[in-house]
């Protein structure tokens, strides 16, 4: 897919003229002259600030060195001392027709991650090669990475022509070799230019020393690069960043990666396949806003119905949604010290979605510098490969060839990006076209039910160690509420595991899914006016946070904080005894993996409270937080 369109990004220049802006990365082997070329380009285009040249001369003189252009960009003391670029940097200048943001990326193999950081933001690239040294491993590696990063426009410069006596033969040799390499990768060089960055030949002027060369100068080549545009013509992709509820609006926020949307559109939320309509497009200080919003915009929308959706979901239009999958094949580059191995547990990020995953297979592993095939069990640092990934939960994605923005992923190790790549194919676990789920609303209004039951719908979530008294309290509360004319329903974790959740085990993923289902069922009941009382150990704070997100304002969390010793002496189900004897390996309580809540609505220790007292306390909390109506009997008398 060609991402490059002729329409140019318009830069707001101070004088009111409009100029396109392009972002160019300069890459190549260490010492082939990147920083020198950048310095020269700035000088030739008159972009150096006053006094900068003098400052550089002084810096060079202080070090007893000949004048060095690279000091301009190598701003760090260590860079100047060692004469290498450590990290990517950006600098701006203007050509005749456009504003250029130059991204200088280090060539040193050790800093490949910094080169990728720089190159991933570019519309086009300049690949630099030393005329004397020719194409090196790092040159090929950079060519390969440009291709992987999706940078399609590459101008090649053959630098230091002065050191090969401006030989046309030597130039042709290198030109042929690099062109063949790039074309083999699917990247066609837009130009191959002989230059001497130090002396200025071929940079802005074709000098007499390269009179045999008829092509563009470096400045000409930069002038001809086109800015990459966001992909407005592709189907809509809006990855959800967050759901905000700062006031009575429930705003779904995110950036449109491709396509466009407007109020009234029917949308599908993937991977769940739920359908809704966009009610409004919100913005500040003016809201709501009319008209379509296209790729690149950060927007906020509201929907015409209350659906559960969360960060990481992707919104598309009906019939054109991304696929949902638990299996992906990807081409990746690896930046971490420790090789990526088959069977490894990783964290992947696809847009705003984060998911645990397993590397199921490594199909290829190559060093893009040497272009040699390697063993298939691991991908070493700075190498590339093709892998199959199995995901812990369904995600929505597109193959890279269909959508470059949603078809790319990064891999995180210990909270740090360790690699990244392109989605080659998606093994859709379910049909690519979402099932048309249109939720049917209840025939009854919420206030009709609350008038009868004297309460609003709620999810009362009792969490605590096994034996802490959750089920006992839940049952007492159920009895109390029912006695007052309400409609309580007990959802006991163990009971639901016997049926609805019988397919789930006790791994962290399964526990999370268990809680999610409990929360979905409970929320459905709450929306229909009932009080769902959930009694579940639910040891993971993150899982309970998910439940709270699902139930939203109906959620009330009660921590049954009975001390572990007391719980163990009770041991109503005999679990503690069994766990002590080694018969229950993943039992919460003995292994001590319970994460107590913070910010819960109520804490109860049943070791120093009677069941009646505890039930009173819960009732009081429910009244204070608007679930139970304050003057129950009076209200009932009035109806």
């Amino acid at each position: 897919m060609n991402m490059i369109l002729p329409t140019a990004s318009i830069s707001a220049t101070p004088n009111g003229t409009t100029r396109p802006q392009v972002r160019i990365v300069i890459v190549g082997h260490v010492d082939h002259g990147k920083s020198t070329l950048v310095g020269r380009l700035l000088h030739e285009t008159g972009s150096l600030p006053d006094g900068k040249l003098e400052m550089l001369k002084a810096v060079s003189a202080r070090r007893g060195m000949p004048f060095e252009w690279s000091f301009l960009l190598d701003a760090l003391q260590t860079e100047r001392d060692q004469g290498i670029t450590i990290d990517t940097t950006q600098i701006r200048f203007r050509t005749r027709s456009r504003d250029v943001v130059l991204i200088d990326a280090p060539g040193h193999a050790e800093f490949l991650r910094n080169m990728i950081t720089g190159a991933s933001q570019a519309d086009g690239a300049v690949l630099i090669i030393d005329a004397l040294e020719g194409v090196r491993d790092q040159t090929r590696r950079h060519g390969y990475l440009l291709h992987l990063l999706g940078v399609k426009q590459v101008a090649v410069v053959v630098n230091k022509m002065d050191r090969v006596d401006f030989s046309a033969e030597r130039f042709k040799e290198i030109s042929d070799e690099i062109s063949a390499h790039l074309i083999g990768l699917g990247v066609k060089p837009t130009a191959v230019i002989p230059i001497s960055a130090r002396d200025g030949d071929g940079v802005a002027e074709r000098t007499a020393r390269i009179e045999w060369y008829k092509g563009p100068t470096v400045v000409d080549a930069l002038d001809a690069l086109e800015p990459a545009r966001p992909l407005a013509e592709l189907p809509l992709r809006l990855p959800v960043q967050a759901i905000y509820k700062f006031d009575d609006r429930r705003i779904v926020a995110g950036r449109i990666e491709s396509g466009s949307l407007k109020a009234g559109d029917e949308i599908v939320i993937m991977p769940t396949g739920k359908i809704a309509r966009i009610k409004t497009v919100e913005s500040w200080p003016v809201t709501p806003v009319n008209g379509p919003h296209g790729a690149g915009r950060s927007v906020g929308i509201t929907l015409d119905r209350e659906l559960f959706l969360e960060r990481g979901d992707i919104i598309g239009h009906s019939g054109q949604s991304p696929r949902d999958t638990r299996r992906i094949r990807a081409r990746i580059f690896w930046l971490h010290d420790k090789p990526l191995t088959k069977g490894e547990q990783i964290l992947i990020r696809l847009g705003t979605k984060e998911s645990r995953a397993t590397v199921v297979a490594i199909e290829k592993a190559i060093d893009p510098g040497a272009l040699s095939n390697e063993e298939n069990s691991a991908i070493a640092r700075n190498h590339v490969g093709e892998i199959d990934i199995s995901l812990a939960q369904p995600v929505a994605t597109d193959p890279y060839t269909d959508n470059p923005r949603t078809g790319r992923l990064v891999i995180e190790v210990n909270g740090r990006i360790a690699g990244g790549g392109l989605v080659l194919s998606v093994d859709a676990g379910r049909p690519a076209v979402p099932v048309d789920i249109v939720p049917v609303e209840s025939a009854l209004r919420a206030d009709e039910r609350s008038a009868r039951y004297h309460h609003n719908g709620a999810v009362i979530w009792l969490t605590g160690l096994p034996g802490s008294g959750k089920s006992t309290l839940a049952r007492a509360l159920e009895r109390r509420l029912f006695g007052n004319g309400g409609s309580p329903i007990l959802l006991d974790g163990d009971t639901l595991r016997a049926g609805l959740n019988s397919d789930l085990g006790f791994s962290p993923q399964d526990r999370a899914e268990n809680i999610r289902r409990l929360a979905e069922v409970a929320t459905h009941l709450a929306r229909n006016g009932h009080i769902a009382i959930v009694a579940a150990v639910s040891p993971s704070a993150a899982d309970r946070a998910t439940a709270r997100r699902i139930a939203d304002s109906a959620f009330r969390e009660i921590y049954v904080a009975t001390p572990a010793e007391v719980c163990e002496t009770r041991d109503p189900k005999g679990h503690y005894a069994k766990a002590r004897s080694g018969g229950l390996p993943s039992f919460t309580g003995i292994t001590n993996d319970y994460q107590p809540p913070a910010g819960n609505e109520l804490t109860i220790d049943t070791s120093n409270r009677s069941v009646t007292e505890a039930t009173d306390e819960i009732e009081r909390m429910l009244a204070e937080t608007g679930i139970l109506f304050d003057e129950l009997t009076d209200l009932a008398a009035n109806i």
Partner: protein
Amino acid sequence: MDHLDELEAQSIYILREAFARLKKLALLWSLGKDSNVMIWLARKAFFGRVPFPAMHVDTGKKFPEMYAFRDRFGKEWDLDLRVEPCPSIDSVDPTLPPAARSAARKTEGLKLALNKYGFDGLIAGIRRDEEATRAKERVFSPRGLEGEWDVRDQPPEFWDQFNASPPQGAHLRIHPILHWTEADIWAYTKRENIPIIPLYLTKDGKRYRSLGDQDITNPVASTASNIDEILAELDATKIPERAGRALDHETEDAFERLRVAGYL
């Protein structure tokens, strides 16, 4: 979408990522043109309210106009404003040159505030085009336990995928307007009608391009009396923005040393 729309959308994306992925955020408000734009962007990102504190690390040596601006717009913009003092000059590395040493008080004040609140993310309004070491920054930039910046070991960051896990006990700096230029800031300030401190406009033939502490910031010669004239002036000038900041020019690496130690 024009250029300013693109900048705005990108900054909003960054702010929302920071809010989604970090627990305890604060936004550093230096009262200057850049951080005013940043607060404006945060209000856009979160539909009118800034859902985290705005912190002013106060050296006590700002211009009266800046304090007046803070007191007025802190209220008008409904900010959860935290004003944090800086320790005395005696607590600062004595080997630094004088202006840098004076500025380094701010780093110390920042450290105290971080310890006090336990923030894991600090949103700061620095830009790549201001200064050469800032040009090398990440959007999400990890800091060490003492707030220091390890320029030799910055994590990879690409395709708007950010590293949002701060090291234990340390924090992240988040830079939502890293990709803006000085001209972008002014063009946007004009378009959005964001209030400005009058010190940026000419008075007696001089104006401030960059506002810092009174004792180490100098005005530049200028006749610009409104934003259009500032933009025209920027288009023509070759004088760097921070030319009036004494601490940048004392020694070759003064600013780098400050930044590595945790300065903005």
